[in-house]
């Protein structure tokens, strides 16, 4: 049997660290296989990928033990430039991998470096553009593409180099639901085409999309392989939950039903799950769930009236948006990449102002055109998706104190705010730590703490759980829920429909600069047509229920509601 990748007794220690990032990895990947490497943040997935193409240790110094052979080539004996002919790696942040000024040139960049004949390069570029569905966008500036398009471009750039092995580091993490489906289809094409070997890392949120695609899964935790095997078997064994990656909602539901005594099998397959549910509920009287979400009914904090916004480049990002946000609301703001969500948030915090004279943004009844930014941010503030964009100090306590100090808090008020945030976000152990060395999940908590410390009444949080493992994601959402109970109005911008369904009382759907739907979460998610227009899908649990005729009308938003339906089931 031919192995595309053979990893033997591989351990990795980064310079300056005592802890091993990877420990005794033994793994063989067959040629043409689609392998999933699944693990929480910090488990070593990316380190393993970057070891395949030699970036570790050539560019990121580290001590290696063991061996890695890719496509018959020993990675420890060759430089990155040579290994790129055998293995391509697409990282999880596409915009950092885009180097050229146009889409076409970016795709051509890789093969141009390989010393190929010009005709061959042009043929490969055309093919890669076609497979990635970027035809027609050749002259676009890569940095102005949507997130999904950038991801497709990053993939096209590696595809054009035609390596037999391609590895993707969390390829779906930045994408909206339809973007995820598009990229997964692309990955399937890549895998089937020319029997290419595909390796994909996954930290949990996109398992619903990636699990059906994998031939085999390897589970990592703390740098060690803890399990390996068939995806269905691993899912059924519960190992994904144990390592902290989490499971698709359908899997957890079935597991919970087993604990209630129902004869079902754990699976991630929606069709199989639906048929099992159909059998369980057949002829039974079902329970109901307690309606737990109530939209905010308090005073209006933010009001937008016919807001239009045209960027200097000519792109009209908002096309007449009107909405009200009231005290106590917990809102999910959803929409595909490029639909205008972040632009809307920038108007809410006063960074941007409407470009049409009759457009108004009112914060606490006052027009933001007549307010200073500092006044607005006392009431409304925004947490960036990427924590690094908002961390300016060296140490954690200084960082949290920064906002209150700038806002004019007294030293004693600042100290109290810092202590409160360290406790609320469980950052006490990191008080004196240097921010540069913090892991991603801690930075995310810190970025939230910095804004909450300034005491806004309305908090806009951009993708609060992207890139986080299950445990930290839950922690973040629980904190936001708690803040909401304490009176802070929360708006969550997210592509994670399961999260929005579980926590948000109200959902606003944006599409192409307009608000397509705005109402209670249940009503909005039940409107398939509008969601389809916006390239979105309802939470998996709702979709599963819709596949079962007896459960069709429930429109459950979360696992908890689903379990209430089954818990109340009678004969």
């Amino acid at each position, binding site marked *: 049997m031919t192995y595309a990748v053979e990893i033997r007794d591989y351990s990795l220690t980064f310079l300056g660290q005592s802890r091993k990032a990877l420990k005794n990895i033994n793994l063989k990947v067959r040629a043409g296989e689609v392998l999933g490497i699944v693990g929480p943040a910090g488990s070593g997935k990316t380190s393993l990928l970057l070891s395949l193409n030699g970036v570790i240790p050539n*560019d990121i110094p580290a001590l290696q033990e063991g061996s890695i052979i890719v496509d018959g080539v020993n990675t420890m004996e060759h430089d990155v430039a040579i290994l790129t002919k055998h293995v391509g790696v697409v990282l999880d942040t596409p915009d950092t991998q885009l*180097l*050229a000024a146009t889409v076409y040139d970016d795709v051509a960049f890789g093969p141009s470096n390989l010393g190929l004949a010009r005709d061959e390069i042009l043929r490969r570029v055309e093919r890669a553009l076609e497979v990635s569905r970027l035809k027609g966008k050749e002259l676009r500036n890569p940095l102005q593409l949507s997130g999904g398009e950038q991801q497709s471009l990053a993939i096209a750039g590696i595809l054009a180099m035609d390596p037999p092995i391609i590895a993707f580091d969390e390829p779906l993490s930045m994408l909206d639901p339809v973007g995820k489906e598009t990229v997964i289809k692309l990955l399937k094409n890549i895998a089937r085409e020319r029997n290419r070997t595909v390796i994909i890392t996954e930290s949990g949120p996109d398992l619903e999309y990636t699990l059906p695609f994998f031939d085999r899964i390897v589970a990592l935790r703390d740098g060690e392989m803890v399990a390996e095997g068939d995806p269905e078997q691993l899912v059924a064994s519960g190992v994904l939950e144990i390592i902290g990656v989490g499971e698709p909602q359908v899997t957890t539901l079935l597991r919970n039903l087993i604990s209630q005594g129902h004869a079902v099998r754990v699976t991630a397959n929606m069709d199989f799950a639906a048929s099992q549910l159909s059998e369980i509920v057949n002829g039974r009287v079902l329970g109901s769930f307690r309606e737990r979400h109530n939209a905010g009914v308090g005073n209006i904090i933010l009001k937008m009236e016919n807001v239009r916004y045209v960027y200097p480049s000519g792109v009209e990002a908002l096309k007449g948006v009107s909405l009200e946000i009231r005290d106590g609301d917990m809102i999910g703001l959803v929409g595909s990449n490029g639909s205008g969500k972040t632009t809307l948030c920038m108007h809410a915090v006063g960074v941007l102002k409407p470009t049409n004279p009759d457009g108004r943004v009112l914060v606490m009844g006052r027009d933001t055109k007549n307010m200073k930014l*500092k006044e607005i941010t006392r009431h409304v503030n925004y947490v960036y998706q990427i924590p690094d964009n908002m961390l300016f100090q060296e140490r954690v306590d200084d960082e949290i104190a920064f906002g209150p100090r700038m806002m004019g808090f007294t030293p004693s008020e600042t100290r109290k705010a810092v202590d409160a945030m360290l406790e609320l976000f469980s950052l006490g152990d990191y008080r004196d730590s240097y921010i540069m060395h913090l892991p991603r999940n801690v930075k995310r908590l810190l970025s939230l703490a910095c804004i909450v410390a300034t005491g806004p009444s309305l908090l806009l949080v951009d993708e609060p759980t992207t890139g986080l493992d299950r445990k930290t994601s839950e922690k973040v959402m629980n904190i936001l829920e708690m803040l909401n109970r304490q009176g802070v109005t929360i708006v969550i911008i997210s592509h994670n429909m399961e999260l929005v369904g579980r926590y948000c009382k109200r959902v606003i759907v944006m599409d192409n600069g307009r608000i397509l739907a705005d109402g209670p979460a249940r009503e909005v998610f039940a409107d398939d047509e509008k969601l389809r227009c916006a390239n979105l899908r309802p939470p998996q649990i709702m979709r599963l229920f819709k596949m079962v005729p007896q459960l069709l009308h429930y429109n459950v938003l979360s696992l908890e509601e689903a379990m209430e339906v089954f818990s109340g089931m009678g004969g």
Partner: protein
Amino acid sequence: MGWVGEMAVFLEYAHRDTFYHRLHPITKLVITLTLFILAGLYWDVRFLLPIALIGLLISYIAKVPARWFLAIVGIMVFLIPFVIIGVLTQVNPLLFKVYPREFVSREFFTVTLPVIGKVGVTWGGLLWGLAFELRIPIILLCIYPFIYSTSFNDLVNALSRYNVPYQLLFILMVAYRFVPVTVRETMTIITALRLRGWEVGSRNPKIVFQRFLPLAFALVRTLVKMIDEVNTAARIRAFGASKYTPIRQLEMQTLDRILIVFSLTLLVLAVYLLFTQNMGLI
């Protein structure tokens, strides 16, 4: 990526079909360097203004976005305090090589300042100040059309034909990526700072310096990270693995050759006259 990506369309190449876009990258490089060097050497406003006009004309031909020129206005405003200091101190007629000493030392106007007393602005100081105020904006004016009309790939294509080492090309690539990304990141960081209540809000230099420290810190950290990321991204795409194959056969046309010869001749002549006849100096 969203709103910052859309806002910061500044100092980035855009594909257009203008006369200047169609010129060979080497031609544009030579023209830009010629104007750049002359703007750096000249001090006489009578020589700087024609360069500015040429820069403006080329920018017009290349259809450089008008909003790019707002940065030039900003820089000119920023330079004013330094210009004022220079104007008040550049009074020694011996510093001037071309203009008659009687002229440069003649007072343009005088003003009495508290504590300091009577301060005079001479014609020499004024000329110096004007040149200082104009040179950096003029340099930018010459660079804008080059950046706007020349894609990095085309430049690498062109330079690789002349066997420019790939390490130098890599530096060029980082610089090309560096500039627009720096602009975007600076805007993002400033917005994030302002959302935390940051504002300069003082004329006290010490306070201004302290206020800008977080921005500087965050920017340096971001740029160091960016250089790492560009390096990794380029290496993953086999940069330096082999001889680079240009995908576009950019041939020099007759017009390109004429412009290159003209530019180089002008440059050589101008430098010669500057050093032998002090042409362009004050």
